[in-house]
């Protein structure tokens, strides 16, 4: 009796989640395994789906490929350029917004706009902004006596241009989440601190920051993971090349190039896996620390 009930409820439960289960199985879980398998293809025919040889060659290849190393380096540069700056600026603005400011939701609403816009479209807009001769950015800088910068052409500036665009695009999202985090802090803490005569700085460092840490942590990890996957911006900003001298060749761009231009699917898959491992590493840290150290109710 009991057994039958268990079975029936199992079937019922599975039926409810079946659509999700099938889709996730076919388009999320299977690809992970297929990618892993493909990354070991060393001699194969992609068009005809025949594999003649498997081995570790693809991994050996990418780690000996200067371009891949450059791609990893560029990606890390990008992440290190975007995440800390983006988080500090958004934290700063979130704190201002949280200090009994009028029009709080208006400002928040404005800052969030870039988040809802198409990266492709907005990157095309920034390409125009960055134009060295007729772009509005160089024009503004010119008003302050700064010589025109070749934002998209100078290998030394290309990455900076990409970072500026990404910070601009992601700021609103971080602000919204950090602001929500700030608003969730129990007012009692502040009252108590005031009663004890704590200074503003003390309140910030001893109350706000620790209590906000889970949110900051979450936002940092999220923007880190997203930054590791940067591609669309590069593709459009530099008009289908990975920046001057390949200075904005990111990991996803490398994968894309190998897959779409060079017919080397096994190598592309191996690179995909390396990217996956990096992202997984940060996600696991997020989960681990998220569950252990920083908690929230």
């Amino acid at each position, binding site marked *: 009796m009991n057994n039958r009930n268990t079975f029936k409820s199992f079937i019922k439960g599975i039926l409810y989640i079946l659509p999700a289960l099938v889709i996730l*199985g076919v388009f999320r879980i299977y690809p992970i395994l297929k990618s892993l398998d493909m990354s070991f293809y060393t001699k194969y025919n992609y068009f005809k789906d025949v594999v003649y040889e498997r081995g570790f060659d693809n991994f050996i290849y990418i780690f000996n490929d200067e371009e891949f190393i450059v791609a990893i380096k560029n990606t890390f540069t990008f992440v290190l350029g975007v995440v800390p700056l983006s988080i500090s600026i958004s934290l700063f603005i979130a704190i201002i917004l949280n200090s009994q400011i009028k029009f709080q939701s208006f400002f928040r609403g404005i800052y969030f706009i870039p988040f809802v816009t198409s990266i492709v479209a907005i990157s095309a807009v920034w390409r125009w902004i960055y134009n060295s001769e007729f772009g509005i950015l160089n024009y503004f800088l010119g008003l302050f006596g700064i010589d025109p910068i070749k934002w998209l052409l100078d290998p030394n500036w290309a990455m900076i241009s990409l970072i500026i665009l990404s910070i601009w695009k992601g700021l609103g999202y971080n602000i919204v989440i950090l602001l929500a985090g700030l608003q969730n802090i129990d007012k009692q803490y502040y009252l108590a601190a005031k009663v004890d005569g704590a200074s503003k700085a003390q309140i910030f460092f001893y109350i706000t920051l620790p209590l906000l840490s889970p949110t900051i942590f979450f936002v940092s990890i999220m923007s880190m993971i997203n930054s590791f996957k940067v591609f669309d911006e590069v593709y459009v900003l530099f008009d289908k090349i990975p920046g001057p001298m390949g200075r904005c060749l990111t990991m996803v761009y490398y994968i894309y190039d190998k897959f779409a231009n060079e017919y080397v699917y096994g190598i592309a898959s191996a690179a995909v896996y390396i990217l996956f491992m990096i992202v997984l590493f940060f996600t696991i840290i997020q989960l681990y620390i998220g569950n252990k150290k920083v908690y929230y109710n």
Partner: protein
Amino acid sequence: MKKIITLMLIVIMVVSLVACSNDGVADTTEAKQDSSIATEITKPVEIEFWHAMSGGNEEALREIVDDFNKQNDKINVKMIYQGHYKELFQKLTGAAKAGQLPVLTQIFPNRMTAYIMNDLAEDLTPYINNEKVGFTEEDLKDIPTVFKKGIWDGKFYTLPCNKSVYLLFYNKDILDKYDVEVPTTWEELRVAAEKLTQDTDGDGKNDIVGIGFNKSLGIDFSFWVEQAGGHLISEDEKNITFNSEAGIEAFDFVSEMIKDGVAKIAGEEKYAYIPFARGEVAMMFSSTSKIPYLKEAIGENKINWRAAVLPKGKRQAALFSGTDMAMFNTHSPEEKLAGWEFMKYFMSKDVTTKWGMISGYLPVRYSALESEEFQKYIKENPVKGEALKQFDYGFRDPKILNGYAIHKNMQKALEAVILGEKTSKEALDEAKKKTRKELDEAMKSFGK
């Protein structure tokens, strides 16, 4: 316990999925090879033609396709724009995998190799030789050799589509003003570039630069190497040779002019015709395919532009670029016949003459080139006439699988040299190593 269950579930899922996918593999249909070709179209067919033409060139192609469709009530050729060449080729690879190749496409020979290796390309030889629908001996002889390169293992797979050639374009008024003759050799080119680089308003910045190059200078660099007496790759396509003495010499020659400021590369604008149209460069190296764009960019400006054959290095050499037209075999015989009919139409004397006049490209038959109509056109548009002079020493880029790697790596090498990060030799040696690896890797994904 929980972990074990999770693990079991995953294993079950994997096994079932792998089983499923194997079924899928079994069904992938091998391209059906028909021994004979269709020679008659009974039912109306619609065929796709993927292309990468834009602007004035697209309009010209559309005019021809529309004419063809009007004349053939059973065939409808549908043009599909796929973006720039590189984007078009990416789409083709994807489509090949998905079994959705178009009947006709524009394609570079080096991209075609992959499809031939995988039996996806339609051998055109039976069509060419067919008595009813094919070419005559005269037709074949009528096509200049430089355009008849679509042959793999003795079989025709591609025919010339949009053929252009690099020329030296110059702004006659500027040359006259500074009393400079049109350069015919590398030495003269260098001298002319120096003389033409001028600071007209005396603000310490050059307002006119001698030579303008496209941003893709390194990609289309082969004619410099050829002029210096070298090749990108050996004839049997086994050895990469762009880092030979000749390659280094060509790299030095071009990069020094840029470093010295007597030549510049188009930046955000990508193509040299844009600064040329504004009178900011006195001479430029460009393919004839950019003529419609150049005219558009000049608009109302008064630019008195001409063109001349490429200056001679150790020898004369001219790069004929542009794509060929190819057909894929994944279609019904009648569709393929329709494709062939369009190719034949496109190659016919009148059409290729028209194409040569309304687009930036060249007619691909001697009879068209010599026709009264075209000769008259040349008198009014002497630029294309210069192009014809280069037939005898024209060459095409290598058609090796993943030949893109050669051009990509040369571009990177050139950028490094211009920035002064590497010497020509270092950059080219490195580029060679990298290219070798990438060519070999590509072979592995189409292994047999």
